[in-house]
């Protein structure tokens, strides 16, 4: 008996020893996993200043208050939301620990991660989350849309909230991860102090924190030493975020060509947004890596509220006449910087579809003329607007030529950006304007989908489908509704999609770990030369 017990004990000890050896051994390091658990090796990866050049600094870093793209770029590294999009653009818990959905899909109970600190050292709790989400619901247009379907939000304790929806909505979870004017979490004190005014207190939970903002010169972020990362492997914007670099310094370099040259000169490590004209040269440079990401939809937005293009037949004629291949090639010159497909949502989302796409890129001049005749078009002048000196003006010129070839009479005016933005809000001023819809992960974020946005697509069928989209309980339901909306787009023609252009970012070979997701995020980015 004693021998058997001794053998058992010895066996147990041997098993424990073997397990200890296994756990101490370094894991396999595959090329996809350059970060090992060896603390010495990991230590070597930390350090350095990532020097980023961009076009334009934001007016604020208060993400609730603006859709400005520069705000989003820097806020991404500072703030976090309850959820974050993975590589498949599905929302994953970020500040949320876990969540459950009731059987009727109307109640979301979200538990929060504990021990998450803000940059001011305060622990994040449910009161911060509630205050931030409510502020977001008042200030953000997406937030207001979401809140139309929220019956109540309850504080269940320091680490749990409950959201009660009016109707089931799969979009609710996506909205908690939307980057554009997203529901980032601030300390309650910041929310209380600012109300719905823009705040200049920049305090988040992200891996980087604001160190200094010298207006018109630079924005400097530093590593947040008390950051609380998730444990999961990085997956898109979700998963573990590690601030390898000590600092990120954003510097304005307004001219796109000079931004590119500055990178080649070694003055920066990363450049956000280069011109398509520089793409070929920089791609051929063996010392640089170019990322094509964050596509922008290039569109002709048609005025459906007033004027001759309120006639659907003429809008259908416009759609039929166009050769998108020629338009995009003529405007951009390099097929590497744009792409063509009929989907109204980007491939980099979960809502890509080519339904009804046969109506796109038809270049059927006979059909166009027939539709114009049916509409009784008598040569009235169509007033178009585009931003002078921009790529959209080039697109508008070629589009105009194609439509004039079938008999449309068009007057194209190039305006400065501020003038265009004012005029597009007046339905008496134009029949169409040209512009882009920058990347957004969910169809409801498309601004032209809303009846009050310039273009004024107020079709009752669309309004009904939009409500259904918001109230779809599952992704599959959402997709079904979205495909119906896309069919409606190709029948009612509120916009004409001309193509998609990539946002081009470039970095040196010293920069490792950059994912190339739509908005540039610099966690998990390492500098080889520190």
């Amino acid at each position, binding site marked *: 008996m004693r021998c058997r017990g001794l053998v058992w004990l010895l066996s147990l000890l041997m098993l424990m020893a073997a397990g200890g050896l296994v756990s101490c051994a370094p894991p396999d390091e595959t090329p996809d996993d350059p970060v090992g658990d060896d603390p010495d090796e990991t230590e070597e990866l930390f350090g350095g200043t990532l020097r980023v050049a961009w076009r334009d600094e934001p*007016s*604020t870093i208060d993400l609730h208050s603006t859709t400005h793209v520069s705000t989003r770029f820097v806020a991404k590294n500072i703030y976090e939301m309850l959820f974050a999009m993975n590589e498949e653009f599905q929302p994953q818990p970020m500040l949320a620990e876990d969540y459950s959905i009731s059987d009727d899909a109307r109640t979301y109970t979200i538990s929060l991660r504990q021990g998450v600190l803000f940059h001011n050292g305060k622990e994040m709790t449910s009161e911060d989350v509630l205050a931030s989400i409510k502020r977001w619901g008042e200030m953000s247009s997406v937030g207001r849309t979401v809140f139309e379907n929220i019956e109540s939000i309850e504080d269940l304790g320091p680490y749990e909230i409950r959201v009660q929806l009016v109707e089931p909505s799969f979009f609710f979870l996506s909205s908690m991860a939307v980057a554009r*004017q997203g529901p980032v979490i601030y300390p309650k004190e910041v929310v209380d102090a600012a109300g719905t005014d823009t705040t200049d207190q920049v305090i988040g939970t992200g891996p980087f924190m604001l160190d200094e903002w010298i207006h018109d010169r630079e924005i400097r972020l530093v590593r947040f030493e008390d950051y609380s990362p998730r444990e999961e492997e990085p997956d898109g914007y979700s998963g573990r975020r590690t601030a390898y670099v000590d600092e990120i310094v954003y510097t304005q370099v*307004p001219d796109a060509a*000079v931004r590119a*040259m*500055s990178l080649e000169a070694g003055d920066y490590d990363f450049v956000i947004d280069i011109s398509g004209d520089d793409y070929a040269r920089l791609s051929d440079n063996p010392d640089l890596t170019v990322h094509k990401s964050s596509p922008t939809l290039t569109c002709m937005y048609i005025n459906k509220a007033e004027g001759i293009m309120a006639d659907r037949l003429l809008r259908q004629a416009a759609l039929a006449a166009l050769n998108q291949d020629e338009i995009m090639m003529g405007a951009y010159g390099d097929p590497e910087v744009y792409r063509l497909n009929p989907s109204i949502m980007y491939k980099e989302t979960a809502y890509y579809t080519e339904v009804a796409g046969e109506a796109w890129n038809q270049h059927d001049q006979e059909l166009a003329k027939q539709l114009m005749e049916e509409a009784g078009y008598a040569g009235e002048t169509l007033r178009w607007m585009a931003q002078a000196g921009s790529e959209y003006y080039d697109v508008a010129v070629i589009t105009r030529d194609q439509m004039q070839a079938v008999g449309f009479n068009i007057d194209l005016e190039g305006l400065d950006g501020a*003038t265009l933005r004012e005029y597009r*809000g007046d339905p008496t001023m134009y029949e169409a304007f040209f512009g882009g819809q920058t990347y957004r992960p969910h169809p409801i974020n498309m601004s032209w989908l809303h009846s009050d946005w310039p273009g004024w697509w107020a079709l009752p069928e669309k309004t009904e489908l939009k409500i259904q989209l918001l109230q779809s309980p599952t992704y599959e339901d959402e997709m079904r509704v979205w495909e119906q909306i896309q069919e409606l787009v190709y029948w009612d023609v509120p916009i004409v999609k001309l193509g998609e252009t990539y946002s081009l970012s470039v970095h040196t070979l010293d920069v490792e770990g950059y994912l190339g997701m739509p908005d540039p995020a610099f966690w998990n980015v390492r500098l080889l030369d520190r």
Partner: protein
Amino acid sequence: MRQFIARRLLTLVPVMLIAATIVFLLVHFIPGDPAAMILGEDARPEEIEQLRRELGLDRPAYAQYFTWLGNAVVGNFGNSLYFDRPVLGVLVARLEPTMTLSLFAGLFAVCLGIPLGVVAALRHGTGVDQSAMTFSLFGVSIPNFWLGMNFILLFSVTLRWLPSTGFKGIADGPWEMARYLIMPIIVLGLSQAALIARMTRANMLEVLRQDYVRTARSKGVNERVVIFKHALRNAMIPTVTVIGLVVGNLLSGSAVTETIFAIPGVGRLMVVSIARRDFPIIQGGIMLIAGFRVLVNLLVDVSYVIIDPRIRYS
């Protein structure tokens, strides 16, 4: 003389206010909504309207003007619509780069332009004269942005001698400042140097034909004395006028150079503020430029007295 200077300084206030009033009328009656620019491309109409109300932009233009005027006379130029920070602070923060660039570009223009013009005049009709004038022709013809981008391509990208963009002030050390500013100084100053060279040459040629110059030479006066004491000094009055115009242009004309070289100065701020319709910044900036012009013109008038003792202001 003191009275003259005092009277000219008093004209600063009405000149600045008149300039700001004209600019106020222009920016408020051209299309473009700052609220829409602040909120971004996706802003919905009710959001824009709300921000317009918060910024007071929904008030009648005359009400906005008198509010602004009443504050301006006590030195309060309002807040930037884009940054929500005092206009004066925003402008002052950007003065150092612009004044540094303008000052050194002006010095460069004068130090290059005057000798070039003198040499061209003295070697009139020779290859030296033609080379100098060809050089000055290129100087006035070449666009700033083209020259700047090619400088960056050569000295930053290819040779890696100089940083491509940015600004370092005197606090960062004179050598660092020089490294960052040498290209923008040449780009901004070259066209002005060309202008000064051409004016100097023309004025020198006219003066060198004068009887008193021939008399001085016939009396055996040293040629250097003839050129620098008699000819150049008399040629300087119109040249100084041009230098005054050049210096005045540098402050307002630095926008392109500042944009290319990413220098955070007043010029670049004015350009982006116009694009954003940031009215308070535009008005404050125009007042600054107008005031600077008045001061430069005063300095030019005072210099006439120094150059030509016959000139007196009553």
